[in-house]
């Protein structure tokens, strides 16, 4: 459905080189080098305010690192034009932590936004959409306004929107922050399913049980922000 910007399998989906990030004078992290190979599954964890959301924003070009560089499929986001960034984002589905929606559009219109703005003409779009809405359990709410959704419903709508274009990379920022355990498992299953289809997944979460659950089913690695650096969390989980 989407044109890959690079199909060579040896190019990492996302790569950070000596990346540093600070707001004003405050350094969140520095010398961070991580590589998300295509098709890999990573969790991102760390205390509140550590910079998980910030790191995700680096990955989809919403922020540029104060030092070092970030590449998406081998392309340095710092050298992309605004339009290139826009097109890159159609291949990188983001579940934003604040679940931003266009208030006056219905839930299903919001979910379809990436299709609209990309100008993609998908054949079985309606079938896709209703399958997806069913999957996240929003079939009955498709015609509601985002403001009428509950917290968890909003999060699921954001997830549906992130995957509607079937992107190669999925960045999910706390996709289970507002949902109960059962729904968390369902969302995790969707992410795992997508990963099995070859998508690269990066999922920020506070929920250690979720990570533990995932590790029983997929070879996920856990990146942990601690202090100003990032480390690979190991067996202690």
């Amino acid at each position, binding site marked *: 459905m989407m044109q890959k910007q690079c199909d060579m399998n040896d190019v990492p989906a996302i790569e950070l080189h000596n990346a540093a990030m600070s707001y004003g004078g405050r350094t969140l992290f520095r010398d961070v080098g991580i590589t998300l190979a295509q098709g890999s599954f990573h969790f991102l964890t760390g205390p509140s305010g550590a910079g998980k959301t910030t790191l995700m924003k680096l990955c989809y*070009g*919403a*922020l*540029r690192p104060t030092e070092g560089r970030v590449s998406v499929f081998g392309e340095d986001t710092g050298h992309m034009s*605004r*339009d290139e*960034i*826009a*097109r*890159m*984002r*159609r291949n990188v589905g*983001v579940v*934003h932590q604040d679940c*931003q*929606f*266009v*208030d*006056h*559009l219905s839930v299903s*219109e919001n979910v379809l*936004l*990436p299709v*609209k*703005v*990309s100008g993609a003409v998908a054949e079985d779009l309606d079938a896709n959409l209703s399958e997806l809405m069913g999957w996240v359990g929003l079939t009955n709410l498709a015609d509601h306004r985002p403001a009428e959704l509950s917290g968890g419903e909003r999060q699921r709508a954001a997830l549906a*929107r992130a995957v509607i*274009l079937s992107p190669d990379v999925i960045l999910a920022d706390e996709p289970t922050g507002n949902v109960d355990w059962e729904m968390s498992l369902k969302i995790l299953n969707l992410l795992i399913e997508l990963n099995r289809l070859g998508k690269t997944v990066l999922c920020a979460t506070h929920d250690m049980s979720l990570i533990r659950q995932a590790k029983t089913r997929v070879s996920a690695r856990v990146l942990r922000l601690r202090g100003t650096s990032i480390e690979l969390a190991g067996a202690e989980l």
Partner: protein
Amino acid sequence: MNKLLDLLRGDTEADRVVPPTGFTVLLTLASSAAMAFLAVFVLALALSAGRQASAWEDALSDTATVRISAPADELEAQANAVETILAQTPGVGATHRLTADEQAQLLAPWFGEELPLDTLRLPILIEVSLDGEGPDPQGLRQRFAAEAPGAVFDDHGRWRAPMIDAASGLKTISLIALLLIVAVTGVTIALAASAALAANGQVIDVLRLVGAEDSYITRAFVRRFTLRTLIGAIGGTVVGLIAVALIPNVSLDGAVSDVGLRGFEWLLPFLVPVGAAMLAFGATRFAATRRLAEVS
């Protein structure tokens, strides 16, 4: 201009992402309508004042009188000399020596019809129609002094000046008001577009987040606002035209009752919505571009 036309064809998909209702919409519609209304109104005033000014100018300035008072034996010679001089003077059109009857008519308001003209030794009056600005009165008087000392050139100047000034003053003021209204319209539309865009900041953020290119976003907003302004301005123009058409019957008669539009002038107000739409196009583009610079 091409871009403007493109817009009108439009992309209804992109359209949906800009909120179709709300105060910012009303504001854009109402302010462009109100401004178009005022603009048409003042345009009519300016055109009427211009027409009035030239009418007065025409009525008052296209004739002058030369009066020759001289001893009876010189009178005819001097009158002939005057006619010769006038014929050579640039700015002078036809000349016409008043007959006794015409002179009597001229005096009638003061002395009645029965003035015994034949018994009077009356001066000769020559009516002169002027071309354009008319002759240079100073130069003319000097030549008269030399060749026809009994001739006096009266260009009605003392009556004319204040009338002409009045009319052209009215025209000037109307044009100033028109300029002001255009400027105010521009400011209001630009600010309304900016305010509406600021109120829709969230929409822009979301669109960028899901991968919309800047041109897509700009187009959606520019189209909406240009169309809204166009619709508002057309509405205002039509109401303005109706108001202008109604004026004479309502309140005025006589000289300035002539306020309104004549002939092809009725087409000029249709430039108002076109101008407003172009203004909205530029203002929204500018505002959208600036807002987009804040989003990565």
